[in-house]
């Protein structure tokens, strides 16, 4: 347990010091935190529960629009803010900005949770590919619908309130970094706590054999819905932060960005190793580093390079980085390997 403390302390110190040690990378680091949150929460469905969802982007986008809408709507008429030809200019005072952001983030987390409960009740009865395709539709539909709602800017997009004039040049970057780092820590602690309870075992039982789990007397539907609501809570939160960080919300390219974020969260979890606590964290970090690298060094070919990376992952690391490590060094994962027994088994084959 002692070593665990050292590990977490090291991560925390790294996280808190990072924006000051690497000031130029604040935005990338903030986005990394958001990516880790998304990968970790996707893993609750995709990894632990065996339900491959493409619908988590729905909660992310919902959170983004809600947070920005609340932040504006609390102080100014929202319709006038988003109206493109609007001649009026609204400026948030620092207090308004931070109050709005705080309230916005609460709404951004809570409403998607409720939505997840309702939608989950309707569609979590679907299994396998049917569930995956159904959730894929959710994100696409949300993008198209939100692109037609005038009050949130429709096709014009939604400019989120600019950061108020407090602190130095770096204040905005630091604010959003610590916000996203905070969300990451919160998510990690929550997920870790959940994984240490019977809840994780139930999710695993659903993944391994849902019918049997039901026969054992587990109300699978209830747990599936709760699991999805947990994901939605943190996805919404991440979305709200990301909206403020990017500064401009577009219905299909930023908020309900199923093509990028929606796919990336799955990729990151698989790359790191789904069904593990640390897998999505490591996967997201490696993925982000590669992605940024490709964007710098293979300009114009970045998606080709990314594609090659994905192929390599699928062929050589089908179980993800954590799965690969586990196979290679099982004793480091607390598995007892009896060398003689292992040899005997190999010889038997």
């Amino acid at each position, binding site marked *: 347990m002692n070593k665990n403390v050292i590990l977490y302390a090291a991560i925390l110190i790294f996280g808190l010091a990072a924006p000051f040690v690497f000031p130029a990378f604040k935005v990338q680091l903030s986005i990394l935190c958001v990516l880790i949150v998304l990968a970790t929460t996707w893993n609750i469905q995709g990894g632990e529960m065996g339900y491959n969802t493409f619908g988590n982007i729905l909660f992310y986008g919902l959170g983004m629009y809600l947070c920005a809408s609340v932040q504006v709507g609390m102080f100014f008429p929202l319709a006038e803010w988003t109206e493109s030809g609007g001649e009026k200019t609204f400026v948030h005072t620092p207090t308004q900005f931070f109050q709005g952001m705080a309230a916005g983030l609460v709404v951004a987390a809570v409403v998607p949770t409720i939505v997840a409960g309702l939608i989950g009740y309707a569609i979590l009865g679907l299994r396998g590919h049917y569930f995956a395709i159904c959730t894929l539709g959710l994100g696409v539909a949300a993008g198209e619908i939100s692109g037609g709602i005038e009050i949130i800017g429709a096709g014009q997009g939604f400019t989120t309130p600019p950061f108020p004039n407090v602190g130095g040049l770096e204040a905005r970057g630091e604010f959003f970094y610590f916000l996203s780092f905070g969300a990451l820590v919160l998510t990690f602690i929550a997920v870790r706590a959940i994984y240490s309870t019977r809840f994780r075992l139930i999710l695993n039982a659903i993944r391994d054999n849902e019918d049997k789990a039901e026969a054992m007397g587990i109300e699978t539907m209830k747990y599936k819905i709760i699991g999805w609501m947990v994901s939605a809570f943190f996805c919404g939160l991440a979305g709200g932060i990301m909206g403020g960080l990017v500064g401009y919300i*577009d219905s299909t390219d930023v908020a309900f960005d199923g093509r990028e974020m929606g796919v990336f969260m799955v990729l990151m979890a698989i790359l790191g190793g789904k069904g593990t606590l640390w897998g999505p964290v490591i996967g997201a970090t490696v993925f982000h580093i590669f992605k940024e690298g490709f964007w710098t060094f293979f300009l114009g070919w970045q998606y080709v390079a990314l594609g090659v990376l994905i192929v390599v992952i699928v062929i050589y690391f089908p179980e993800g980085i954590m799965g690969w490590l586990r196979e290679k*060094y099982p004793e480091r994962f607390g598995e007892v390997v009896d060398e003689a027994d292992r040899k005997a088994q190999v010889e038997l084959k």
Partner: protein
Amino acid sequence: MKINKIILSFISAVAILLSTSAVSFAKVVGDKIVLGAAISLTGKYSSNGVHTQNGYNMAVDRINSMGGVKVGGKTYKFEIIYYDDESNPKRAAQLAERLISQDGVEFMLGPYSSGLTKAIAPVTEKYGVPMVEANGASRSLFTKGYKYLFAVLAPANLYLDVAIRTAVELNGGKGVRIAQAFEQDAFSQDVRLGILDAAKETGSEIIIDDKLPKELNDMAATLVKVKQMKPDVLVVSGHTKGALTAIRQIAEMKVDVPMLAMTHCDAAKLSKQHGKNSQYALCASQWHKTLTYKDNFFKDGMTYAADFQKEFGYDPPYQSAESSAALLVFKDAFERANSFDQKKVRDALAATNMQTFYGNIKFAPGGQNVDKPMVLFQVMCDGAGKCENKVVAPLKWASAKLIHPIPKWSDR
């Protein structure tokens, strides 16, 4: 708990990686002025992104070869750092941060499209980085109180305003029935608002008001309605893909409409790609090569077009011309400011009042160019099927007479 060791070593690896890659460039290195630009090299705006980049490069080469920029008695040359924003606003905002905080760029050129400019403007504004942009026309860009944003082009709501007014005039001053279809993006929606304003003022009626999805390649549903309801004017705006899709399907479905007004015809190379099918289409344009504006670098529109053709192998669309103009504006501002201080350059930009081959440039307090009207051209073909864009409005620049109404498909 050996797994901790793995994770710990992983974290340290990340830390080392970050610290080694933190290289920063200064904006003015030696005799170079480094400008930053996020451009759509991939994604839905890639063709216009390339037009923009070609326009920038053309002007950089020209200015550098003609003596560069003289500041404080020294001569500097322009250089541009490009990144690919993938036509994605989220990416564009990140890249702007990166250009400024990692690459140390102190002056920016705009991306392609209003949406991406909207995403970048808050970032450049925050750092006080002057940005001259040539491809973000949405009106809402100029009502946010941005101080470091300068656009060399006319705002989007004016794009097709002329077309509606012309149609009303030809209708004897009575309102017309308008059918319109616009892509769901910042620019096209702003063009739509412009039409709504024009319709209101002229007493015209909007009978079809459709929204088209992004990256559209089918608008048959709208065209079926147009066939049924027979409007006087059909307005379509959806960047390059919108223009290409509209012409393709109008020809396929033989839709007859007296006036067809669009945007992005020249970027889509309509007259080349669709030949006679695109005939009679009316197109809003920021610039046309036959306009008679002049400057010392490119001489005039015709010379620019010829030089561009030689360099890149195609006729320059207005997206390239306005992008080239952005650099002329920067050069002029640097020399007048006689300094690389961002604030001074910003003030010099705000005081810009010049003529380029692309048009007059003078910025309103909001940052938009108020000294350059839009032009409207019509695709006209000769008997041999060779098609050309001819300016038909405003009358001052017109090189041909507007053909109205468009002949029916059965008579062509």
